[in-house]
Structures are given as C-alpha cells and as structure tokens.
C-alpha cells in the first residue's frame, strides 16, 4: 500500500516538476535606463497539502488549475508568486477595486496567500480562443510595441516584476482593468502611469480598448 501514501505527494509536486524553473528563477539586478531595481522573484516550493486545500476553494470560480473558461473571471494560473501576493493583499486592504475579490481576500492570512500563490505559479495558463476585433488587435499591437512592451515582455506572455500574464487573458477582465486604471481607481506603478497617460493623450481613450483586444487575442506565443 506504499503506492497509496506516496501518490498524493507525487500529485502535489508534479505541477512544479513539469514547469521549468526558468519562469521563477531569481534574476540579476539589471540596470536599465529607468534605473528601476528589479526584485528577486520569489521561488516556488512543492505545493503543500494546505496549499492544495486553499487553492481548491479558488478554482470553482477561477477554473481548473486557475485557468478560467470566461467570459470575464480572469485566469490566474502561471501568475508569479509576487504578483499574486501583491494582488491579494491589495484586495484585502481595499486598495484595488473589485466586485467579490475584496470580500474574499479579507478571509486570508499572509501564510494562506503564500500557499495559494505557490500553487498557482506551478499551473499552466491554458488559453481559450475568444472573439476580438481584428482592427483593434492590429492597432493594439502597435500601441503595445510603442508603450507597453518594455514591462509586458514577450507580447504579454511573461509575468515579470508584477506585470501579470496578459496574453490570452479574458477580454472583459482586461477592459475592466484598463477602465479602473484610467479612472484612477486602481493604482499603477509610476512608470506605467506615465506611459498610459502619454498613450491616451496621443491616441485617445480608444487606445485602451485596442491594447485590451491585442492582449486578449494572443493565443500562441510563437505566432506573436
């Protein structure tokens, strides 16, 4: 019956083993021209039984392994530990607007949040094709290159320094976030605020919609 005892642990770890460590390996400080000091990303540990227990309460809404079937609830799989942690704490402290997440986040301790974050980073972001407007996608692609790419690297497929994975995220969710940033309801890093304001000044409010369509349309990393 040894098999019985080991299988749960094996299951808990396999997500981690199959996800190459590169996504959350620590990174040397890089001295880019913004002189922004990049933090060393928190590394994932094997998922604990408590981590699994907590994550199980999330996936009823956020989807299997955190990959949502939409139309609006965001996919949270593959999210970097620090991104997840910052988001949950911002919700908990009422610093980030939400409908239901703020109410739920208040129910968790720092340790709980760390356990959840550690689970979701090991999960693959599974994308579902969604309807986007080709003209907006095209315009959004250029806006992305001109304004966003430096932080939202690799076409938004990479979660680096809290950028979140945007590629293939659900369109309504992206639209909600852009609206909240624009209305100054959701805080953003100074650098982002500068770029966003400049983008809107040059291209109008419609540019927010266009970048949202671009990211939502991104299904295949190689095809970007």
């Amino acid at each position, binding site marked *: 019956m040894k098999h019985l005892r080991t*299988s749960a642990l094996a299951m808990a770890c396999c997500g981690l083993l199959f996800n190459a460590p590169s996504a959350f390996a620590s990174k040397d400080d890089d001295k880019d021209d913004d002189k922004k000091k990049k933090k060393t990303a928190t590394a994932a540990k094997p998922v604990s039984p408590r981590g699994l227990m907590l994550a199980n*309460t999330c996936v009823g809404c956020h989807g*299997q392994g955190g990959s949502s079937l939409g*139309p609006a609830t965001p996919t949270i799989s593959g999210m970097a530990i620090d991104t997840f942690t910052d988001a949950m704490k911002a919700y908990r402290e009422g610093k980030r607007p939400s409908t*239901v997440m703020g109410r739920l986040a208040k*129910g968790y301790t720092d340790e709980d949040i760390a356990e959840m974050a550690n689970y979701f980073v090991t999960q693959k972001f599974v994308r579902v094709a969604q309807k986007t407007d080709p003209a907006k996608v095209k315009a959004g692609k250029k806006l992305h290159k001109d304004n966003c790419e430096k932080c939202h690297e690799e076409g938004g497929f990479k979660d680096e320094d809290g950028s979140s994975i945007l590629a293939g995220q659900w369109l309504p969710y992206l639209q909600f976030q852009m609206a909240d940033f624009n209305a100054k309801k959701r805080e953003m890093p100074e650098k982002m605020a500068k770029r966003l304001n400049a983008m809107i000044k040059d291209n109008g409010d419609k540019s927010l919609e266009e970048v949202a369509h671009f990211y939502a349309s991104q299904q295949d990393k190689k095809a970007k």
Partner: protein
Amino acid sequence: MNRREFLKTTALGSMAAGLISIPYIAKGAGQKVIVIGGGAGGTIAAKYLKKMDNSLDVTLIERNADYFTCFMSNEVIGGDRKIESIKFNYERLKKHGINVIIGEVTGGDLNAKTIKVGDKSLNYDKLVVSPGVDMKWGAVEGYDEAASEKMPHAWKAGPQTALLRKQLEAMPDGGVVLITAPANPFRCPPGPYERASLVAQYLKHHKPKSKVIVLDAKDDFAKKGLFEQAWKELYGYGTDKSLIEWRSAANQGKVSRVDAAKNAVYAGEMGDEIVGAVVNVIPPQSAGKIATALGLTNDAGWCPVNRKTFESSQAKDVHVIGDACMADAMPKAAYAANSQAKVCAAAIVAALQGKEMVAPAYVNTCYSIVGHDYGISVAAVYNYKADDNSIAPVQGAGGVSAKDASAEDRKREMLYGLSWFNNITEDMFG
C-alpha cells in the same frame, strides 16, 4: 488503516453482502469509495478523491443520465437561456477513472458497509452521500407530487423547469404569477427572489400588464436590500405599477394550503384565496430521501455531521455533503457543496492513508442575476472551529455586494456570475 485492517474490513463487507470480490492485493488495489448523487457535491467528491489518490476505487452512482443544474435555471425560466445549456452528463468524469453507475440507490446496510442499487449490492470502505434535497410533500396542505405537475416547484431543474417556462409563455398578458417561498432552511436562499426578478424581466418585455406576487413564509430573505433596490431600479417596485409584489409572513404572505384544481393558494391568518394564472410553489424541503432511508437524518430531516470531515454523526465511515448536510453558516448552495466535497475528499484520503488531515478551508460564492446586465453576489470564507464543531465565517470577510454599487459594477457581477457557472460546471463534469 493498515493492510491487515484493510483485508478485514473488505472481507467482512464482502461476506455480509454475499459477494466474493476480494481485491487483488498484490497490485495494491485501492479501497472502495462510493459516492451517491452526481450533483454539485457528489461529482466534485468523486473527482477530487481520484485527484488526491488515484489508486482509490471510486464509484459515482446517480439516478439520472442527464443532470440539469439548478444554477442558471432561473435564466431558463425567464427566457434568456435554453435548457440545453444547463444540461450535463457524466461521460468526461469517466476519463478520471471514476466508475459511473446510472441507477438509484434504494437503501443499504451501513453496519455491513453495503448499499443497494437495483438488485445489486455494493460494498464500500467509505461512503459519500450527496443526494441534495427532496420536497416535503404535504407540508403545504394539498401540495403533493401530482399537484407539482400543475403547479411546478421547479426547485429541481429539468422537466419542472421546462414546465414552468411553458406555463409563463402560455399565460395571457394580465395574468398573475404566484411564487410561494418556504421558511428557512431550504435550497438556495436567494433563489426564489432571483426567480421573481427574472420572471418580472420577462413580463416587462412580453406581458407588461402581468405581475409577480411572492408569498413568503418569512419576514426577511437573503440579499433582501439588494433585491429590493434592483426591483426599484428595474421593475417599479414600491409603485402601483410594480411588476413585483412581496408579501412577508407578517403581511399575510404565509401559504398554508393549495388547491391544484383551482390553481389557488390560501395565505395569511384567514387563509385568503389567491388564484394565479401560473403558480410556482416552492415547498419546504428535507435531505434527499435516501439519507433518511440510510438513517442519516435527524428529526428535522437534515444530516448532522462532523464539520471538519463531513462524517455523519450517526454512521461511521459515511460522509454527507451538500444541501443534505448541516453546515451552520454555509448556505445550501452549489459553491458550498463544491467546497464541502473537496474538504470531505481530503478527510477521506487522509483517513485511508492513516495521515493527519490538513486544516480545512471552505468558501461560498453565489451570484444572483436580477436583470440584463445586473448581477449581485454573496461571498464568505469560513474556518473550522473545533471547540464547538462548527463552520464559522471569518470575521471581517465576506458579505454581499455594495448597496450603492455603480451600474458598471452590477454589469461586471453579471459577467462574473456567468463565468462562475462555466467554471463550476467544468469543475463538476470536466
């Protein structure tokens, strides 16, 4: 449980059942877990048991080949959704290695650890019971199963949902729709009021001379403030043109008797007769009948359990989850059943592996759709309290949608509600 105990239990169970199915031990054959009921609780228990320990022999027994979700069935009744979109089956669950039996469990011998499906007797090491609710026929005088064919409850989705929809479509403009709501506890506390909202929405666009009257056995209900606010904004609530009227128990709303032949209900102290063009009676409920047949219910008709493991207080190695169980602050809702099923699966796997169970975590999130682009929600995070064996909400967390939320937020909640449906049904059947 060690190997010797395992052999003993299985052999005893098999003998008692008159079966000879000693597992092939050399292969490490897993212990048998049987799950009764393929709904919001049972599907999740079966699937997560396999996820947590793939060597378990898990069998899910469900009466019907198709499952219609109650969640979003009010949208079908209101005409915004086709009934096919709430219909699911068990084919994909089989791919997880779950044995699915379509059949009805009619009884069992819990001392012998066996249950009966048709003429077969099956033995288990652990049993999970998630049968949902059954209507208490006769609790409202005159309301029995035959009456429900004329005055549908539509509190189990499927043919009843289709019947109520058909009656609304056939109703002439100007007809009155009666909805009777029961006293607590019952399945889906905000459900009757979500239904009143979506029926009103249908009337507003198709039969504007009609109205809905809710006759309630209570003086208060779930998310009342939010519902009433929405009704004012959308359906003229409180004016003499209101599409919805709510009569509390204190205001002659309590229905004591119905007469299916006359499509009438009798409400209030004097038993005033009210005739409806369409009458939807939501009667008092109890745990699904099989729970009583197995001796798992108390006098009130619900199943007391250990709140950490969901093991029955009345039978060893039998766990009850979902609407049928008593779970304190957790409402009888699909998300609650989902959350309980996962905790229960963890408890069973820990017990079978002889390990300490990890601290449980429970959540409920429940959306109500009250109009086009208008959703509201209630959410809670709970912890287990060992001192009084209770499930208690975490103080300061949870609660209902903001009273003064913007139209934009109501729209977002509607879209999150649709996402909730897509993701929870994938969790259940995917």
